[in-house]
């Protein structure tokens, strides 16, 4: 697919980065599904976002186009604000329940 690029000049092929990004993403998804502590789920979400960041930077290098890196800027900013809001929600949950175990979140039916 990248036949038109100067892949032969790259010391580390782009596919290595993409595979690493996919592995990180999978680890993140597994973390979200397995963990019960809300903060650990947040960490896994951050891991997923950073896996996408890695993919963006790798592709930006492959295409010699800085748009990927600009995207990473914005993703990091969004991740920062998302985490700020999420942690505020966790503090609110902790105040009313004294626990941040997400298995305890079933006060509404079904």
């Amino acid at each position: 697919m990248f036949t038109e690029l100067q892949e032969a000049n790259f010391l580390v092929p782009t596919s290595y980065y993409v595979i690493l990004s996919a592995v990180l993403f999978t680890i993140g998804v597994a973390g979200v599904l397995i963990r019960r502590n809300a903060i650990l789920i947040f960490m896994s979400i951050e891991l997923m976002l950073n896996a996408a960041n890695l993919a963006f930077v790798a592709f930006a290098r492959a295409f010699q186009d800085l748009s990927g890196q600009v995207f990473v800027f914005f993703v990091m900013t969004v991740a920062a604000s998302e985490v700020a809001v999420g942690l505020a929600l966790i503090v609110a949950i902790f105040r009313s329940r004294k626990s941040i175990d997400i298995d305890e979140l079933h006060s509404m039916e079904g």
Partner: protein
Amino acid sequence: MLVQQYLPIAILVLFAIIMALIVVFTSVIFGPHRPTKKKLAPYESGMTPIGPAVRRLPVRFYLVAVLFILFDVEIIFLLPYAVVIRQLGLYGLIATGVFVVILTVGLLYEWKKGGLDWE
């Protein structure tokens, strides 16, 4: 040929691990092991410890950390702008000005609501 360049580093890492292992195992095998109650107590500069080892942090620290993150991200955007300020001209100035104004309004809100006080 790539491996040859990294061989000294690999040897260095190996040596570091071997040295660390030698030191630890020497003290485990040859050192005397006669614990007393006073020797096993946690160390707090020679005095008896006060309070639990891991205390709950005040939630105020969370607010400080969040404010730090937000203004740090503002700096992340302002620094590259400072590098290319001439090339971006008036349009860039207005865009960045709007960005800084929004964050300043947020800071003003934070100030008035007491977010910057410690108590």
